[in-house]
């Protein structure tokens, strides 16, 4: 049935892992990029991700439709984003702190309402078999690409283009770079930031629905294990560029597959250190590409975390 790939199993696992694991990270970082480009930071997307995962799963269980689940996940995410956005529009309220509190609220509500949905099985989202050309089942499995991954890629490209070349993109950047300049142009920064946070939340909700409806494809309380928080941090790594978010998510997902893949080819010692590969690699790239002179390249001027 399956044939022995030898050491080729490692690059294949990394590619497969990158495709499987990256999607939720990609959606959260895209959403956060949008939010941060408007000059706000929403640290609470971990909670949004988890709630989105629960809401999507519950909807899919009850309705039988995974796509309805994704929609509900996105809507719930938008609501969380909206709450964060509205609260942070009040003067003197700290967006980082509200984000942390929202993280607690999101995971708390998800666990609270998610208890009855741990046991039932929900229908999965469909995947596109891009590995049809190969006879190897491993290749076919690795290239079984979920539709949301493709949508994420398109969203990254579209977002990059929209930020660069469209009027809403320009408005978002102006608001993110200078509240005063935005006001002078007759824009309403608080309103625009709130919208950007709501849309960012919707992205995170979709990311959550991928977790529960495709990979790993079930709802339980350990479903995210901090991926949302990591994805928010990766936005800084990606220097607020949607395209870079895509690469960062791939790097992160691929590096995460190293641990199991190395064990499967017989490199069995020190697996904790291999499991830390995504963090160490990201830190390494970050150190290599940073410098004091351009520390804030790409950073929105109004962003509290880099001010």
């Amino acid at each position, binding site marked *: 049935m399956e044939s022995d790939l030898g050491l080729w199993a490692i690059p294949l696992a990394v590619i497969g892992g990158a495709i499987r694991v990256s999607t939720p990270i990609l959606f959260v970082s895209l959403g956060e990029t949008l939010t941060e480009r408007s000059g706000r930071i929403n640290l609470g997307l971990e909670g949004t991700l988890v709630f989105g995962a629960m809401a999507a799963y519950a909807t899919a269980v009850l309705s039988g439709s995974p796509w309805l689940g994704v929609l509900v996940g996105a809507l719930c995410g938008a609501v969380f984003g909206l709450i964060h956005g509205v609260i942070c529009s*009040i003067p*003197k309220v700290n967006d980082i702190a*509200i984000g942390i509190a929202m993280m607690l609220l999101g995971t708390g509500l998800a666990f609270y309402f998610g208890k009855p949905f741990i046991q039932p099985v929900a229908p999965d989202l469909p995947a596109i078999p891009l590995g049809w050309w190969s006879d190897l089942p491993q290749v076919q499995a690795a290239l079984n690409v979920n539709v949301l991954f493709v949508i994420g890629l398109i969203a990254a490209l579209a977002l990059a283009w929209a930020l660069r070349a469209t009027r809403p993109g320009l408005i978002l950047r102006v608001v993110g770079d200078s509240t005063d300049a935005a006001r002078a142009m007759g824009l309403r920064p608080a309103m625009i930031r709130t919208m950007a946070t709501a849309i960012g939340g919707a992205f995170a909700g979709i990311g959550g629905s991928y977790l529960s409806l495709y990979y790993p494809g079930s709802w339980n309380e350990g479903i995210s294990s901090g991926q949302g928080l990591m994805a928010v941090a990766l936005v800084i790594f990606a220097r607020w560029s949607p395209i870079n978010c895509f690469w960062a998510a791939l790097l992160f997902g691929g590096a995460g597959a190293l641990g199991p893949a190395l064990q499967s080819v017989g490199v069995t010692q020190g697996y*904790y250190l291999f499991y830390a590969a995504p963090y160490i690699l990201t830190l390494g790239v970050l150190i290599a590409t940073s410098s004091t002179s351009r520390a804030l390249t790409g950073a929105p001027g109004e962003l509290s975390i*880099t001010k």
Partner: protein
Amino acid sequence: MAAVEQIFRATEAAGFGSLIRRSEAVAVPVLALIVGAAVFGLFLLTQGKSPVDFIAYVWQGGFGSAFSWQNTLSRAAPLLMAAMCVALPARLGLVVIGGEGAIVLGGVATGALGAHLAWAPAPLGITLMVIAAMAVGGIWIGMAGALRHYRGVNETISSLLLSYTAIALMNHLVEGPLRDPASLNKPSTAPLAETMRVGPLPGMDVHWGLALGVLACILCWILIERTAWGFAARIAGGNVRAAQVQGLAVGKLVIGFTALGGAIAGLAGFFEVSTVHGSANASLAAGYGYTGILIAFLARQNTLAIIPVAILLAGIEASSGLVQRRMGLPDATMQVLQGIVFISILMSDAAYGRLAIFKPKGN
């Protein structure tokens, strides 16, 4: 309200106007706490549960008896130190979220060293372990500060990455090179010699970490508010360029404050091992570092305010079991409560200086 108003005006007339302005710093968050609890009460009502019972159980479980207080204070101890790892760098405008890593590695250092200290008299051995734990924690978070200063690496992401790396390192060490073969199904370092264990505070069932945590909060407050270093940090936190123009050593401040924060978090790791666990193991990664972030922000990075906030949070967690058992609510209920209450308290920041009652009328 009118009565309060009268008392305030009388106080003011007696020449204690500043007392009123100070009371605002207490009254506003307390009011916000009540509002938050009320909103949560509405949530409970939608779930068919009694908010009155709930509050009674939180009180009973967290603060209502000697046992409840000891429960609360035991939980508060590591949180005090974890919050400091956020609050100190925050005075320089840095957002450090990786304190968990310093706690974990501080614990590992304590466990690794403590197992070999049977020869040492207790004061010496304990001093050595404290130094080791604080040094490791300080270096770990200090690295984030150094990377920030020398390479311009954002400290928020680097501290988070370092924290995950620290947890992996801890797991590797306690299951590999440092594993005590006798620890069987809970891989741990060799147990600390009995003389190296730190006992409870006199007359209480709460360990010394609480006292040291409170002391650290007070000392850091003095450092920030009453010393030249603290003054320099506050200037640099407000405006790095201005600080540099003034000739302040911003680099030393950044590395010093992050390292100090990390060292205090490392001390939390020391207490976990020397008082609770007796050896280092995976239970060191209990999430105190992440809770500390929330506490520091709720305390508005004021190290004295960290003390009541940490106790409040610990009290809520201490009562969680009673609420689960008596009301049939899932444990996540407490997270929902914390989320709502903290959002309410954080929103109340907007109310400072806006409530007419706290404004002096005399001048």
